[in-house]
């Protein structure tokens, strides 16, 4: 019974998203920027490949930036939040403002199917977007450079897509939470955007400031102090999903990355430069993945509790 109503609500939300102009605009925006970045990366890839030894040519399509256009992953990292925010900022308060919430809840359904259906439909829309765009972009990449991806590259790309979905759905969960906290859709949209700017830009700035206050660095400071300073800055930065996402994607798409924290030169002595296998890269970013999923769950859990306790006044 309740499973059925969840399915009905989920389908309706999905249809709403897919038919909305908002979705079309977002898809166009992401597709155009993604294609532009792939095109410029592919044009410059021949020189890059001949200059240095690199086994993972296909992955470089996604990480390399062209002359003036940033790389695919930096576009996704920048615009991904926008997708999540746009899909969720009016999901609950819009329903209240249109007067449909009390009518909906007067049907024989469990109250949580409403919020579950909305969140799941949002995640599915994001997944459709990420996978279809990723596959199109990859296909164009193959056509342009003429090198098919290896099996490992495919695994790495698929993991990258999944991480991207988690990343975008955090923003969906955040905007859905704001759509519960604020009555007006405009307010919740603004609050979500403020959150986005704060987490993707200001956290980085603040992290540096805070680290310098706690572990001040000057000409005389010890290596230990400098290490503490940059470790603290890194940890503070990792509070933001943007940092978690970019570190995770760098590891996934660039097998040459062997560590994400600061290490001293002496620790590198004797190390043989080379690519990490896929499983080792995954191990490296495992904490990031867990954090991304946890952030999703925390945001959603808060929304869930607020929604279940909310007085439903028409």
């Amino acid at each position, binding site marked *: 019974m309740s499973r059925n*109503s969840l399915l009905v609500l989920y389908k309706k939300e999905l249809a709403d998203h897919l038919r909305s102009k908002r979705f079309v605009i977002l898809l166009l925006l992401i597709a155009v920027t993604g294609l532009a970045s792939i095109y410029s990366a592919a044009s410059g890839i021949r020189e890059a490949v001949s200059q240095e030894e690199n086994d993972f040519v296909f992955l470089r399509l996604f990480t390399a930036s062209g002359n003036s256009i940033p790389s695919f992953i930096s576009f996704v990292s920048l615009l991904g939040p926008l997708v999540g925010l746009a899909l969720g900022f009016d999901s609950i308060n819009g329903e209240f403002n249109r*007067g449909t919430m009390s*009518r909906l809840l*007067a049907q*024989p359904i469990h109250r949580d199917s409403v919020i579950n259906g909305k969140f799941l439909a949002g995640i599915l829309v994001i997944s459709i977007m990420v996978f279809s765009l990723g596959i199109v972009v990859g296909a164009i990449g193959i056509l342009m450079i003429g090198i098919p991806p290896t099996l490992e590259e495919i695994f790495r790309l698929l993991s990258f897509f999944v991480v991207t979905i988690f990343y975008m759905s955090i923003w969906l969960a955040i905007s859905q939470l704001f759509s519960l906290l604020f009555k007006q859709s405009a307010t919740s949209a603004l609050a979500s955007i403020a959150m986005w700017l704060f987490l993707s830009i200001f956290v980085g700035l603040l992290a540096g400031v805070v680290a310098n206050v706690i572990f001040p660095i000057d000409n005389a400071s010890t290596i230990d102090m400098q290490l503490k300073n940059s470790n603290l800055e890194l940890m503070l930065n990792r509070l933001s999903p943007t940092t978690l996402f970019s570190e995770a994607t760098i590891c996934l798409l660039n097998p040459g990355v062997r560590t994400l924290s600061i290490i001293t030169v002496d620790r590198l002595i004797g190390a043989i430069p080379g690519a990490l296998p896929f499983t080792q890269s995954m191990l490296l970013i495992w904490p990031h993945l867990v954090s991304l999923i946890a952030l999703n769950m925390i945001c959603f859990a808060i929304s869930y509790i607020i929604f279940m306790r909310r007085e*439903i006044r*028409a």
Partner: protein
Amino acid sequence: MDKNVMIEIENLTKKYDDVIAVDHLNLDIYEGEIFGLLGPNGAGKTTTILILLGLTEPTAGNATINGYNTTKEPIHVKKIVGYLPDNVGFYEDMTARENLRFTGRLNNLNEKEIESRIDSLLERVKLVDVGDRKVATYSRGMKQRLGIADTLMKNPKVIILDEPTIGLDPAGINEMLELIEELAREDNRTVLISSHQLYQIQKICDRVGIFVNGKLLAEGPIHTLGEKVFEDQPLTLELNVEPIDDKLVSLIQSISEDVNISIDDHEKIFIKSNNDIRTPLLRILSDNDYSVLFLKQRGRDLDDIYSRYFAGEE
């Protein structure tokens, strides 16, 4: 009465912080009757309805509909109760049919059943011609009628209507009332109407309850209400006779000890007394060759209920 009790409310109380929205409400509503819950805005009508639907939890007391406890078994209750909220909203970018179909699916009806119900309900609320138009193009009255169709999708035993006539023009109000009366009488459904528009609603109600500040002042058929509400207050008779002379006053005084007579500038006589003296008064006046031009009992009819509790609400 030997009818079945459909809605049973016992000692229902709801407090918001310091404000008591519903104060120890006791009320039985019988199967197949139209009950009007009438009270000024802010009297606690909507709160009571939300408790009946299990959308709000009572602070104390309980309510059952058809034997189901509304707080503990809301899903069972919502299966048999159709609810039309005030300011009902629909998904504006969907057509009327799509909106009704969605409600039907949430009620777990099969697709065939849904389509046949939609057809017959649109017929009934006179929206067949516009059933495939988007709800955004509907007028207030059309939306309200669609709301009625929406509550009937689940073929409910009980229908709860919150301010169904608000914002409608006089023709729309009459149409709405006829529709409500028809669906109660023909299908033997129990209807609970909440409204502050005493005059319009009482026309179709079997019984009404006057609900002010969370308390039910009186309930019963409308013509008995005045007595109940103003039970302990003196009656006032408004009288106009010809001729008016000194003998008149002493004649009236002779009927009962506790009458209080005053005459205003327009030659209207006001007689205050604690019991109904209309019959002896008329006899004594006709015996003494006074002709009665006008006699009205003040303080116990609908007008007085209205001016006392509802004036200034519309």
